[in-house]
């Protein structure tokens, strides 16, 4: 760098947009938490399902989306906009883009808040918003990305600080995840079918869902930690070296962990195993972030007593450490068999969301408010009160959910003395956890109360000052050695060559046919040793290369993208391209009749998947309670898949044909008439509305486009078929003195529920018998599960 004491110019930071995002986050924080306390109460007091648009199934997506995208989203943008300008020593790239980003994001939130209670949903967790809003999110995210990278482009600080690495990872990865998981074909302005179905959809959904946690709730907040924590502590960061190792290992490993949401399901085992082991490997990188946060405070621990900002940061980082320890634990298959579908998962996610996100946000806001409004914090004791009631609230919440999850899991697994029947009905287990669900309401309520105290405190603070935009004298960067790195320097060097070489060999071990796989593993180990030796000899050049990478934001971004894209490619591509005969195992689901499809769409839009799974796992208690375990082929035509992630009610994978239509009618009208003490909302409104006949032909046409083998039918035929089936069900119900309209949503939902679990045994195309012969190339990759079968060892 040829820095000849360049002239200094005053630069005014765009702090207005930071204030806007901060206030939005605080307000939406209240909304999200209020919604959380409300839906938690609904689980104990079904009477709170006051109206059709206030049912648990519709409000739970509102709560999760508000917490993730409105609360943490706005908080993240406030933190990123504030710190990026200072770390780059320049104003944000473009003021218009900043405004579009802010207002666009708030519009999206409003649109979500309107559409979700209306029952407009894609039926995939944290990806519920309908396709026009999806497009808006993608556009606004691109606006944000352009604005951010423009800022990097014109920065006056040659080197990228670790906080910026995490922001870069966030921006590229969220864009990738969001777009892929939202690919869909519209059937109307408010409805679409995702292009993936069944197991593919499950895999893509949790690749997205888990990494929404990783790259929306974790990496941006780690970046924020790296800026605001040392600022508040006025201490140097503990270890630059640790930053490097934990950043790269975190972004690379996180992407692989998604399948741990699908353990013991019909997902192929090799994916389950990758999900579990990458989650275990992820423990250390996650704790690297925690260590760098906590140890930064070495020598300044006394501040913990006096400064509420530090208190919140330290507690937040500690909760991060706790939940990133719990995460790998929960993804061990044996533990997961008990914890999955239970409240334990809910407790886990809230120790992250309330403890890590909530407290990091609070700490940041307490730090920012006095600076952005040029004043002092109104009350330290109020902030302390917030801290303590918040901490107690989280602990109460999390402990209640641990106990609830473990207890319900154990109760569901209990069998009768002869070991041939389950001991407790699902309702029994629900009654047992009610007190704990009550404690959760109190814990969540305490956290909300603390948050409201913060609102008052910050409001008073803001009132005592005036908005200030910081102006700083900045030496303009003389662009000599900055942003000049080419492709060759980026990729052709020891660090990248060693990493990619080792990775290729490891993939060879996983995917090559027997014999070649072991050879590949041995090569990988030898190669690894050689790489370490080389590093020991020439570590100085590795360090220099990394320093120059930090002076080049585009190559850095490209390498980050490569690191995050690999895991997804390896897991998703084989599952999407593998031929369908292998995908269905021995069963293929029967096509939904038009009425059943209409019923399914109602099931999806009412958010039934929030409480009911459709996936019987390969576990004895599951099979005893719900019937034969689910096969891949049994949901192959499901767009979206509805395997679910939580059982507040029983699994429905084989619900079809188990009870009379009249039972379903009565149960939907008033669940407690058939299942006393149930906490399910009533769905009497299904009886008053006709199902959507108009778009049904278009829906089936889209299904055909997606490869669902519907025979060609014209619009009248489809509607006639639907009505005929409706009449049949209505006639049957008439026998039990129940009068329903044959074109009502009620009839459609009953038709769908009675179809669940129906399959036929396909005349398996000789695909299976063909296997093993005509392998075109001796080293063509194979799916590990097939390799194992070929071994003959099951």
């Amino acid at each position, binding site marked *: 760098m040829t820095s000849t004491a360049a002239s200094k110019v005053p630069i005014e930071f765009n702090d207005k947009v930071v204030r806007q995002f901060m206030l939005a986050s605080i307000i939406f924080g209240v909304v999200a938490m209020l919604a959380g306390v409300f839906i938690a109460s609904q689980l104990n007091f079904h009477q709170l399902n006051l109206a059709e648009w206030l049912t648990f199934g519709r409000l739970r997506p509102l709560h999760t989306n508000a917490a993730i995208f409105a609360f943490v989203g706005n908080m993240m943008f406030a933190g990123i906009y504030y710190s990026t300008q200072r770390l780059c020593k320049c104003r944000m790239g473009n003021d218009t883009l900043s405004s579009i980003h802010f207002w666009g994001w708030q519009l999206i939130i409003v649109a979500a808040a309107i559409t979700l209670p209306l029952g407009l949903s894609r039926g995939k967790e944290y990806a519920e918003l309908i396709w026009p809003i999806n497009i808006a999110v993608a556009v606004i995210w691109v606006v944000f990305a352009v604005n951010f990278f423009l800022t990097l482009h014109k920065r006056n600080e040659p*080197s990228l600080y670790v906080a910026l690495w995490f922001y870069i990872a966030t921006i590229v990865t969220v864009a990738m995840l969001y777009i892929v998981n939202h690919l869909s074909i519209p059937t109307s302005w408010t409805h679409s079918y995702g292009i993936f179905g069944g197991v593919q959809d499950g895999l893509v959904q949790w690749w997205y869902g888990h990494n929404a946690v990783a790259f929306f709730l974790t990496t941006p907040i780690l970046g924020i930690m790296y800026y605001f924590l040392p600022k508040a502590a006025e201490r140097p960061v503990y270890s630059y070296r640790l930053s490097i190792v934990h950043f790269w290992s975190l972004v690379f490993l996180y992407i692989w962990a998604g399948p741990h949401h699908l353990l013991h399901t019909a997902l192929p085992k090799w994916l389950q195993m990758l999900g579990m082991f990458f989650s275990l490997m992820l423990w250390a990188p996650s704790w690297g972030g925690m260590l760098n946060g906590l140890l930064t405070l070495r020598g300044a621990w006394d501040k913990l007593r006096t400064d509420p900002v530090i208190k919140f940061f330290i507690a937040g980082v500690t909760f991060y450490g706790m939940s990133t320890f719990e995460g790998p634990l929960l993804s061990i298959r044996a533990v997961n068999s008990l914890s999955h579908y239970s409240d334990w998962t809910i407790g886990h996610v809230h120790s992250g969301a309330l403890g890590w996100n909530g407290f990091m946000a609070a700490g940041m806001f307490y730090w920012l408010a006095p600076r952005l409004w040029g004043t002092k914090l109104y009350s330290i004791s109020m902030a302390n009160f917030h801290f303590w009631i918040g901490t107690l609230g989280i602990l109460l919440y999390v402990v209640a959910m641990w106990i609830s999850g473990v207890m319900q899991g154990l109760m569901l697994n209990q069998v009768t003395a002869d070991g041939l029947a389950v001991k407790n009905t699902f309702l029994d287990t629900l009654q047992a956890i009610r007190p704990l669900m009550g404690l959760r309401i109190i814990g969540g309520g305490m956290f909300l109360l603390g948050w409201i105290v913060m609102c008052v405190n910050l409001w008073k603070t803001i009132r005592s000052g005036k908005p200030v935009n910081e102006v700083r004298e900045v030496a303009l960067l003389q662009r000599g050695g900055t942003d000049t790195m080419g492709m060759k320097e980026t990729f052709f060097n020891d660090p990248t060559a060693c990493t990619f070489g080792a990775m290729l060999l490891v993939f060879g071990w996983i995917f090559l046919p027997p014999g070649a796989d072991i050879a590949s593993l041995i090569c990988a180990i030898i190669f690894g040793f050689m790489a370490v030796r080389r590093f020991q000899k020439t*570590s100085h050049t590795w360090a220099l290369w990394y320093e120059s990478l930090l002076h080049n934001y585009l190559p850095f971004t490209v390498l980050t993208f490569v690191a995050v894209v690999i895991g997804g490619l390896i897991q998703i591509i084989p599952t999407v391209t593998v031929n369908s005969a292998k995908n269905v195992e021995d069963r293929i689901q029967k096509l939904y009749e038009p009425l059943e499809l209409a019923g399914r769409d109602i099931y999806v839009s009412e958010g039934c998947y929030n409480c009911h799974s459709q996936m019987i796992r390969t576990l004895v208690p599951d*099979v005893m309670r719900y019937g034969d375990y689910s096969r891949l082929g049994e949901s192959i035509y499901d767009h979206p898949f509805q395997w679910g992630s939580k059982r507040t009610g029983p699994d429905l994978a084989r619900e079809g044909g188990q009870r009379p239509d009249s039972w379903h009618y009565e149960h939907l009208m008033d669940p407690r008439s058939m299942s006393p*003490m149930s906490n399910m909302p009533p769905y009497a409104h299904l009886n008053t509305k006709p199902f959507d006949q108009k778009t049904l032909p278009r829906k089936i046409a889209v299904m055909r486009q997606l490869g669902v083998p519907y025979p060609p039918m014209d619009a009248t035929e489809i509607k006639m078929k639907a009505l005929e089936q409706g009449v049949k069900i209505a006639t049957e119900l008439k026998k039990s003195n129940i009068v329903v309209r044959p074109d009502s949503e009620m009839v459609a939902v009953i038709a769908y529920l009675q179809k669940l679990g129906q399959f036929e045994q396909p005349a398996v195309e000789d695909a299976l018998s063909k296997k093993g012969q005509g392998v075109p190339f001796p080293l063509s990759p194979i799916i590990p599960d097939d390799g194992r079968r070929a071994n003959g060892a099951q």
Partner: protein
Amino acid sequence: MDPKKPSPNNEPILREHSYDGIQEYDQKLPNWWLFTLYIAIVYFVIYWLCYYQLGIGSSDTLVIDKAMAEMQTARDKQMESINDEQLWALSRDPAAVEAGKATFMTPGMCVTCHGPDLTGMLSGAKLPGLPLSDQEWKHGGKPTEIFKIVRKGSPDITKGMAAWELVLGMKRVSEVVAFVLSHHKEGEPITRAADSPPATPGAATTAPAATTPGTAPAAAAAAPAAAPAVSPPPASK
């Protein structure tokens, strides 16, 4: 990725560069932390090697199929001991009847559809279930026939009673049947309902196949037809 550069006096290196006033030390990575990472990686390699390359351990489906097959054998064995006389005897055992009553009256179970007095009525309104207190039996009134209906549900479950075997287990099913039988006398006349399915006389005897061997084949033929593509024993929850 530990450079193993011996720092002269164990002082942490403070990097010169400052980002907006933030400096960084360059501390060595904590050893225990590195080990957790290494151990996780080694564990992955060993486990994968054992499962996929050495073929150690069973697949999930094999394990579950075996467990369920064993349970089915045990169930079949239990069935061998069930016959009309034994069920009538049970209906005169107060302890069994009391236990059966408790199960019957549990909210959400039998009582929901058949009513607390077994009439299929609740305060004048007709419930979904048929009366169990009269002598008309749609699917046959022999104890083993009632037993079968409770276990397996009606021939077409969507139009009648659900299957309870997996929810209650064989012991509680027989207690419930004992409770129902305690409202009846051995040898009382049994009438068939007007809408009784024709196949029932044969199908009803499936349970203890040994008692009436002649009708067993008909039942065996009827069973698969009744539940064409719904999977094997789906229980209620």
